[in-house]
């Protein structure tokens, strides 16, 4: 059942590879779109069969592979990976749909995108640590090519930077996982090497080993997420990548980092997590504020959206730090909501760039003009920007609120500072909207090509989803509730002193 999500895109990529050269652009896109649609419907099918009340892994598949290494083909899905798998399937469809026929070297392009989809799905589903690393590393190659071939002016610099950073992240994670597997194997006498998630989760490591391993993993996933100060690959990669690839990078790939934080850091090191949690809350706060403040200083709308992403990933860590069921649900919801909103923003910024020909804040103006501007795109941009700034009724708000509510009881001060971070988010989105959508359209330059309905569809879907999940958030959150509760059950985070002071007088 789950293997379909991994292997169907590979088959699709192979089919695209053998398509005849004539009319390759259209055919490749059609095949890719069909495959993506099947994957999406298959994901919905998985969703319909998913049992919400079961906190453990479902639809597990097990196939021994290289037993001497402890590597096995072990898949499974639970409430934490499910929203991310759905996000992956949805955004891959959006990416393929929005890519258009004018892409150079279409066969390569679409097959690479399908391979990325396969790698991402594999990482979210893998239940063996080595298998996870395998998928985690494999999806770098197509992404590197996607940035380096179809990117902007500085694409090679950005692609190499992206590759180096994420490769370092992969090495750190691999090292930590290997150490983890060996240590876990050595604690049980006579057992063979085994990297299965459940096996490792059930062995208790000495505390002195947990901390260094956890820190290694935190840095590894922190690079991928990215968290400040490991983030500098992000603005370059997001900005230089073409809009569909930016959606892939920011919408799904970055979620691998936060997914790793939940699954492997919080899940495998419950004791050590409790110790480092206060520092994590501070790290999250630093990321939020840093991302928001640097975004304010940007002059390029794509770069602004890229920096906004850094801040928003900080909320995920803030939700995870206290290891409460609510915070974890909020963190997963924030991953999904950020994926959708960021995809919408990158898509719209891409349309603006394509039609208007610039991303400069100082050049853009008056796009809301109903006749000669881009009124629909502007309206969507307002909605997506406001969703990102956390206006109620849109999904960004409720995800952030649940994060805050989950984190406040344990870390009141960092949470309040993050609330200030949402204020700053509001500041740069108002700057963005004021300069692009509002203002007087310059008549001499306003000869923009028409926006076709097919170009509005992706924005419509993404913004519609933002709105729907904002009004009906239980559709987003109910999936992960049980798994989150089970995951954090054994974690003990010691609240900060402040809250104790608050509660004390009440108990008297």
């Amino acid at each position, binding site marked *: 059942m789950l293997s379909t999500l991994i292997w169907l895109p590979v088959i699709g990529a192979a089919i695209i590879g053998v398509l005849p050269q004539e009319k390759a652009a259209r055919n490749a896109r059609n095949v890719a779109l069909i495959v993506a649609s099947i994957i999406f419907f298959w994901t919905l099918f998985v969703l319909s069969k998913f049992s919400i009340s079961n906190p453990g892994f479902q639809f597990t598949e097990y196939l021994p592979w290289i037993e001497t290494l402890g590597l096995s083909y072990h898949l499974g899905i639970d409430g934490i990976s499910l929203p991310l798998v759905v996000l992956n399937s949805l955004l891959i469809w959006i990416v393929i749909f929005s890519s258009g026929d004018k892409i150079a070297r279409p066969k390569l392009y679409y097959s690479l995108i399908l391979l990325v989809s396969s790698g991402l799905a594999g990482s979210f589903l893998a239940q063996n640590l080595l298998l996870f690393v395998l998928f985690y590393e494999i999806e770098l190659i197509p992404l590197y090519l996607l940035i380096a071939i179809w990117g902007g002016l500085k694409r090679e610099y950005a692609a190499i*930077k992206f590759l180096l950073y994420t490769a370092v992240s992969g090495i750190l994670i691999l090292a930590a996982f290997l150490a983890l597997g060996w240590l876990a194997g050595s604690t049980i006498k006579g057992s063979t090497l085994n990297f299965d998630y459940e096996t490792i989760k059930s062995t208790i490591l000495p505390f002195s080993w947990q901390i260094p391993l956890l820190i290694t993993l935190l840095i590894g996933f922190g690079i991928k997420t990215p968290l400040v*100060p490991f*983030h*500098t690959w992000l603005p370059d990669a997001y900005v230089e990548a073409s809009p569909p690839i930016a959606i892939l990078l920011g919408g799904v790939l970055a979620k691998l980092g936060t997914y790793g934080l939940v699954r492997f850091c919080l899940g495998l090191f419950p004791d050590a997590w409790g110790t480092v949690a206060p520092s994590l809350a501070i790290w999250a706060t630093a990321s939020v504020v*840093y991302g928001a*403040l*640097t*975004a*304010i*200083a*940007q002059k390029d709308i794509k770069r602004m959206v890229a920096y906004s992403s850094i801040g928003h990933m900080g909320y995920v860590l803030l939700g995870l730090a206290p290891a*409460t*069921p*609510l915070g974890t*649900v909020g963190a997963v919801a924030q991953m999904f909501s950020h994926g959708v909103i960021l995809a919408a923003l990158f898509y719209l910024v891409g349309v603006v760039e394509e039609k208007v020909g610039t991303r400069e804040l100082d050049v853009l103006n*008056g796009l809301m*003009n*109903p006749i000669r501007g881009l*009124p*629909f795109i502007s309206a969507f941009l307002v909605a997506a920007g*406001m969703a990102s700034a956390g*206006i*109620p*009724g849109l999904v960004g*708000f*409720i995800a952030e609120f*649940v994060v*805050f*509510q*989950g984190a*406040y*009881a344990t870390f*009141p001060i960092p*949470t*309040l500072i993050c*609330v200030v971070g*949402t*204020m*700053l988010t*509001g*500041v740069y989105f*108002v*700057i963005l909207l*004021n300069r692009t*959508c*509002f*203002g*007087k*359209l310059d008549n001499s330059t306003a000869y923009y090509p028409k926006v076709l309905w097919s170009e509005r569809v992706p924005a419509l879907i993404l913004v519609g989803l933002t709105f729907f999940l904002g009004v009906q*958030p*239980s559709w987003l*959150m109910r999936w992960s509730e049980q798994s*989150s*509760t089970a995951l954090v059950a054994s974690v003990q985070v010691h609240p900060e002193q402040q*809250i104790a002071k*608050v*509660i004390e*007088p*009440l108990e*008297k």
Partner: protein
Amino acid sequence: MSEFLLQTIWMVPLYPLAGMILTIPWSPGMIRRTGPRPSGYVNLITTFFAFLHGLFALTAIWNQAPYQIFIPWLQVANLDLTLPLEISTVTVGATVVITGLNVLAQIFAVGYLEMDWGWARLFALMAFFEAGMCSLVLCNSLFFSYAILELLTLGTYLLVGFWFNQSLVVTGARDAFLTKRVGDLFLLMGVLGLYPITQTWNFTDLAEWASTAQIDPKLAALLGLALIAGPLGKCAQFPFHLWLDEAMEGPLPASILRNAVVVATGAWVLVKIQPVLSLSPVSESAMFIVGGATAIGASLISVAQIDIKRALSYLVSAYMGIVFIAVAAEQTQTALLLTFTYSLSMALLVMGIGGVVWNNTTQDLTQYGGLWSRRPVSAFAFIIGGMGLIALPPLGGFWSMQKLVEQLWISNPSIAVLVLIVNGIVAFSLTRTFGLVFAGQVKPMTYRSPEIHWPMALPMMFLSGLNLHVPLLFLQWQLLPSLETVNLTVPLSLAVSSLVGFALSGVIYLNNNWQKPVQLGWKPLQDFFAYDLYTPTLYKVSIVFVVDLISRVMYAIDRYLVDGLVNLTGIVTVFSGQTLKYNVSGKGQFYILSILLGISFLVILVSWPFLSQLLIVSK
């Protein structure tokens, strides 16, 4: 019938929402053939239905005990977000006021925006406001109130930015959004901070909790201040008052709604959380200080304005300041009554000047004059609105103000005197506006100024009638004080303060012999008020400057330090690689030398523990 409508009272916000959605086909590019006007009519009809629904429900709830209904929304982990609605005479009555004023404002908009192309947007946004405000008054939860206030902040941004071609409009929309958002987010902090202590956001439960709560005074003060900040932004109180001034760049029908009811949403929330605020003397005195300072300051600024809409908008802040004072004095009933009379009169005042602005193509008070004979309807609307606003018997404002001052007289006499002074200044300011617009000589801009057409005149006349009937309504609701118990000093001093304001202003502004523009003796003082106490400059040199500077510095650090370090590592690697390649010389002796050096270095390294021992021994 009425019972059924009462049970379905939660539907009231859905009518305007439906109207909003029905507007979509008239957004640009979809239906061109009919022009944009049908969108307005659709919204008028839905709003009118909402009004009727509320009106019938009001007759059913009249004199009944309030009750709550609960609508489940989100249950996740241990968080239960159920939407509680409070159905009572006050809440249903408030929806009737909101929808009723919105019907009038929308009819007014039909006339005012006759030539505009943005009908769909304006009416959709007005409906959005209506839906938001109706949900706000019905909902009985601090969390949902906060959420709705945030939504209204977005609505303000879009509505103020309606004519987004103009640069002043764009900055006005931006400032309105950001100022209100700052307030909202402080409120969010309060919302977050309150929950661990009370385990509820339901206003009724909060009030119950507050009646017995024992809580650390420092925490109570912090919570109270955070909770006040939200209403502070909404009600345009010092120091968050500037947005309302800039919001006057928006279309006038929206200003009717904003000045009359939207700002009052802040007051509504304040009234609802008053039990929690009363836990802390610090937050109560903060409300007194802010409310008092705004009431005096804003009414003085209003006197110095030369923009007709701004002269009114500062009175909004001033009156909301008085509501703050009422809440601080724990007179929530009076605060609501004050808000009610204020809303009706302020809506009428804005309509009155709206008609004038519409066909005189200027908002500059100094260019008006002599419209009395040309614009009788507008003039009467302004007079009735003004008399209803200030404390002048027998109209509405007098009775609510009298209630407030009578209690303040006993508890805080100095505040009571302050309210009297504010009342006098407001009377002065209104008479000044009236005198500059309607009295005096005809000027070039007012030479041709026919009375407005019916879509604007109708709501104006209707609202004038309603304002005149407010005392009768009060009589019906038994809100008027009985003659035996009343302390006569209060009504007398109120009336005197209003009359003094009128008279002083009349001598100056209804008098053609007095030199205009009027100069205050000392120019810097006049400028101080005319330039809104220099608040824009204050913002610019403080918060705007700081945020801008920090963001630039952070970005520079990001580019040159964090990223610079990464690039430096890259460059060093490349450079050393480039340098080392010259080692490949092809000469055997060079290779052997490097091998020898390497090996001897390793040997020393490995045997270092041993060697160091040797060294110590030799010493």
